[in-house]
């Protein structure tokens, strides 16, 4: 029974998420088009939704070029090294009340542990290509991913602190109690949860190389970064890995902060959990597409200083706020919940304003003095 459950779960994950990747590429292109007052793809299939099939066939039939001076084995293996940990990371995310492939006690730890392996794959791709653009892209990717891993993990640590468990199932169950008679206690409704969610969102965008943090494959600067020497289906596999990484990051954000498979209101609990999870996932993807259509790419120094000088202090302060939230639950405050909320929101807000002021000081409008 358990074996059948596991195999069917693996098959489901390996079918659903690549299909979602295909649909997301079309939705992203259409959405980006609309954000820029264009039409987007609308030729293949109804409203252009079969575009990803055409793209897949195109990728499959393209010539697979490997540079002669490349490290053949590493160059070949890199896309698979990227895909395996990404698929593994889906195994611990709960999609429904009982719908999780592996309910680890240390699910969150497992997620971050396998997630860190993607950096290896990116560097393998960049190093083995024997191309300066590839190597530049790979080095940028390493710098970025390692920098943003820190705020990512620390912002999700708050949840672990409050829940007292690394199991993602437990974390979702902790958000199930109902407050005010209709609202589930999602972590994003608390001050530390809101701040943590924001930090997590930005760090997740950087982890999955999404614009505005796409400097590892900045097309206008270093061709395609570590993907420069990849063609045909290996290129498509890299894209698959990148998008699946984004989906798993979104899935984790939903699990940690947005109540996982829980309905937003308790009177909607009759709708099955996986549907809520899918809706939340699509909403998160829409936010990332919106961000991609809006924000320009950061420079490397801006990117790193954002991670170390702004997001890391914010994440650490947020950790203290989470502790304050934990202890203030037992205090006898005059107006109860509202005062507790404001008490914890104040340090987050004040530190945000102070840090932002300090951080943006050097980004004041530049004055130019031209030669006469």
């Amino acid at each position, binding site marked *: 029974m358990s074996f059948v459950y596991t195999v069917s779960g693996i098959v489901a994950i390996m079918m659903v998420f690549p299909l979602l990747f295909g649909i997301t590429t079309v939705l992203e292109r259409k959405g980006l088009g609309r*954000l820029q*007052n264009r039409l987007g793809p609308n030729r293949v299939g109804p409203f252009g939704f079969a575009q990803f099939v055409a793209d897949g066939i195109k990728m499959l039939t393209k010539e697979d070029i490997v540079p002669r001076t490349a490290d053949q084995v590493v160059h070949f293996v890199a896309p698979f090294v990227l895909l395996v940990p990404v698929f593994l990371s889906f195994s611990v995310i709960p999609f429904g009340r009982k719908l999780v492939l592996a309910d680890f006690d240390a699910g969150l730890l497992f997620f971050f542990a396998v997630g860190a392996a993607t950096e290896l794959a990116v560097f393998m791709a960049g190093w083995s290509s024997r191309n300066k653009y590839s190597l530049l892209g790979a080095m940028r990717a390493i710098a970025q991913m390692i920098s943003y891993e820190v705020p990512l993990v620390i912002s999700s640590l708050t949840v672990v602190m409050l829940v007292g468990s690394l199991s993602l199932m437990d974390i979702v169950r902790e958000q199930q109690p109902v407050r005010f008679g209709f609202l589930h206690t999602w972590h994003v409704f608390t001050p530390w949860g809101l701040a943590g969610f924001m930090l997590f969102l930005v760090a997740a965008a950087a982890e999955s190389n999404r614009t505005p943090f796409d400097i590892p494959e900045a097309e206008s600067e270093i061709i395609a970064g570590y993907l420069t020497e990849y063609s045909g289906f290996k290129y498509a596999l890299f894209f698959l890995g990148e998008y699946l990484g984004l989906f798993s990051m979104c899935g984790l954000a939903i699990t940690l902060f947005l109540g996982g498979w829980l309905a937003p209101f308790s009177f909607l609990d009759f709708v099955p959990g996986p549907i809520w999870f899918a809706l939340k996932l699509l909403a998160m993807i829409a936010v990332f597409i919106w961000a991609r259509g809006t924000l320009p790419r950061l420079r490397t120094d801006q990117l790193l200083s954002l991670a170390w000088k702004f997001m890391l202090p914010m994440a650490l302060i947020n950790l203290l706020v989470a502790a304050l939230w934990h202890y203030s639950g037992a205090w006898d405050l005059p107006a109860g919940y509202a005062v507790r909320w404001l008490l914890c929101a104040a340090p987050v807000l004040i530190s945000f304003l102070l840090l932002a*002021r300090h951080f943006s000081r050097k980004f004041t409008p530049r004055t130019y003095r031209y030669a006469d």
Partner: protein
Amino acid sequence: MIGKGIAKGFIETARNFVGSYTEESRLVTVEYPEERLPQKENARNFPFLVYDGEDAEKGLRCVACKICEKDCPPQCIYIVLERDEKGRPQKHPKVFDIDVSVCMSCQICVEVCPFEAIKMDTEFELSQTDRFDGLLLDKHQLAKSNEYYHKLHPTEAAAVDANLAAEKAKKAAPPAPSTAAPPQPAPAKT
């Protein structure tokens, strides 16, 4: 304040997104093969031969004088004069070929033609599977009616028609007394 510009940008793109569904004027894309913008009146591409009346062969204004052939800078026009069985010239081209792969759309042939027989077309969808014979247009492909010319360049065609009619009247009438107003010179062609 950090984040203010970011929020502004997000609002702007959201407005674009919603606006592209609600406001027609935002979506400027013309889906070319199905939709197309109207041609500008002064658009020009490659030359064609004008004929009057119904019959493309008989109505050709061209008299095979070969001025355009001589003046064509890239030498893309080839004309052979039609002769009857006795070898007398017939004021009609037997062969009139234009190699549009060589033509540079300079319009000099149109400027030099004294018979208003060659004009500029606006047809631009000329892709061919054979770039040699496919792009060598012969007399039958080049012949287009005067109505077609009127449709492409209405102002210019009207001026040309008036000019031709004036010349015809002048030729038909006996030498006019000097008091009559001289025929208007042809308006400058563009």
